[in-house]
């Protein structure tokens, strides 16, 4: 067991928190921080609609298929960002085409998800490159994403945000009362599909940053936390975006000071935010 690094005692704490050379590290990761912040803003906002449309499980399913796409790209030696993008957008649109019935949707996602995960694991097993690239896809690897790819992640987030801003009002209507929205002339199928495309885009970026298994920490937890403390259509998206930025950026900043991956920091911050919001929400009346 001597090859295992201790996680208790002074040495252990140095793995979790160690802020020597922090300034130099910070410079190295400034673009990662920017990408994380942009993802936080878009992920938090998209998450509010994910909650309203009861799609948390779909987000998880999309991220597993995004992982399969990224693993395939790794094996083929092409861009991992492109691979995860293709995987998640295809999955998101497929789920969107299944229609609005949550029960049908969930069973199909339940069928697709393990298949996607299995494919991803197969591709990784066939790939004989660096092991950290393999593991990173499941649990996050933002620090190892290079400059040009970070530019792509930011651009993908920007496109997703633009889509959501354009369809915001009809999407709100469709999330609340699809029958009435259709009756009022909202092109509900188009709006739903556009939302799924935006969701697919955001998930593919989140897979790069926190890993396929932990996407929910940025796409569901912040919105769920925000909904605990407010019901305002303005405050909720703003809070959700702030919480997601806090988790993503804060997670990277803390991870820099240790030798652990960033994901546990991101998920812990996210979870603590949720706990605080639950307490605040149950104490005060919601604004």
């Amino acid at each position, binding site marked *: 067991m001597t090859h295992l690094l201790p996680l208790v005692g002074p040495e252990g704490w140095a793995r979790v928190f160690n802020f020597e050379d922090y300034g130099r590290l910070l410079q190295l990761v400034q673009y990662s921080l920017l990408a994380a912040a942009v993802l936080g803003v878009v992920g938090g906002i998209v998450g*509010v609609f994910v*909650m*309203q449309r009861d799609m948390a499980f779909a987000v998880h399913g999309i991220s597993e298929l995004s992982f399969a796409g990224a693993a395939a790209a790794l094996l083929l030696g092409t861009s991992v960002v492109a691979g995860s993008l293709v995987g998640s957008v295809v999955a998101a649109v497929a789920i969107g085409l299944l229609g*609005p*019935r949550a*029960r049908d949707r969930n069973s199909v996602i339940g069928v697709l998800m393990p298949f996607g995960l299995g494919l991803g694991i197969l591709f990784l097993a066939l790939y004989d490159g660096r092991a950290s690239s393999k593991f990173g896809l499941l649990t996050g690897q933002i620090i190892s994403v290079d400059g040009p790819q970070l530019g792509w992640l930011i651009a993908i987030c920007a496109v997703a945000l633009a889509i959501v*801003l*354009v*369809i*915001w*009002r*009809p999407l*709100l*209507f469709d999330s*609340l*009362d699809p*029958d*009435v*929205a*259709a*009756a*009022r*002339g*909202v*092109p509900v199928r188009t709006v739903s599909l556009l939302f799924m495309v935006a969701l697919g885009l955001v998930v593919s970026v989140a897979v790069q940053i926190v890993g396929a298994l932990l996407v929910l920490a940025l796409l569901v937890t912040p919105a769920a936390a*925000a*909904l605990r403390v*407010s*019901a*305002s*259509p303005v*405050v*909720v*998206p703003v809070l959700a975006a702030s919480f997601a930025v806090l988790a993503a950026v804060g997670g990277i900043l803390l991870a820099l000071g240790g030798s652990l991956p960033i994901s546990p920091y991101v998920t812990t911050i996210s979870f603590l935010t949720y706990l605080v919001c639950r307490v605040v929400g149950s104490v005060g009346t*919601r604004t």
Partner: protein
Amino acid sequence: MSDAGDTNDTVLSVRSGRLSFGERTLWSDLDLDLRRGEFLTVLGSNGSGKSSLLKAVLGLQRLTAGSITIDGRTVTHGDRHVGYVPQQRLIPPGTPMRGRDLVALGLDGHRPGLPMLGRREARRRVTEMIEAAGATGYADRPVGRLSGGEQQRLRVAQALVGDPSVLLCDEPLLSLDLQQQRAVSALIDARRRSHGTPVVFVTHDVNPILAATDRILYFANGRHRLGTPDEVLRSDVLSELYGTPVEVARIRGRVVVLGTPDDAHCEADHGDQVHQRWAG
């Protein structure tokens, strides 16, 4: 428009309407002229095509034959000259929306972009409508925390805020208690009297709106009867329509229809329909 019978200006017009799904014809030879301020109640068994008629008027369901016009124009897909009130379905408690936001969607929910940016005129209309619906007291509270009746009043306000040519209601009183049923139907009735907005009201139970009803459209067995309540809600008329003996009784001002094919398991059907709505 206090007396709808005096006016002859037609708002909604159905000509030789027929709706079939494959071999099955829900209704045919439907001719209907809905006048300004008129209150039409649509009755019939489950699956007799009541809601499909509303879908057809909304332009969401194509007729197999015939035509539907509103103010002389053929209806378009998702026609914005039509207001629509759905079945009462509880809005989840976590919904980030105030009563006011729900009503505003009836005005601009179909437009792209963010809600509530500027547009003082829109805000004024929403406030006026909320006042008219008697919902001012809870318009700024989260919709998910309002009672079913309060939510349904806001939905009526949402349907009316765009000042539609016709108001369609699909079982809007379902699962509301008696007092809430009265409040919601009074709101609909008041609007057609003050603004002349004709109403097509689909329901299982005619009693809460019997006093407001001008005419009844009754669907059964792929056929229909159209006329005043006294002309349609009669044992001989409904027996002929159903093809089996049906008894219409009036007990203490309430109309009870006995012996229809879905009478025996009425409650079960009722539950099923609610269930399907949720799933859909």
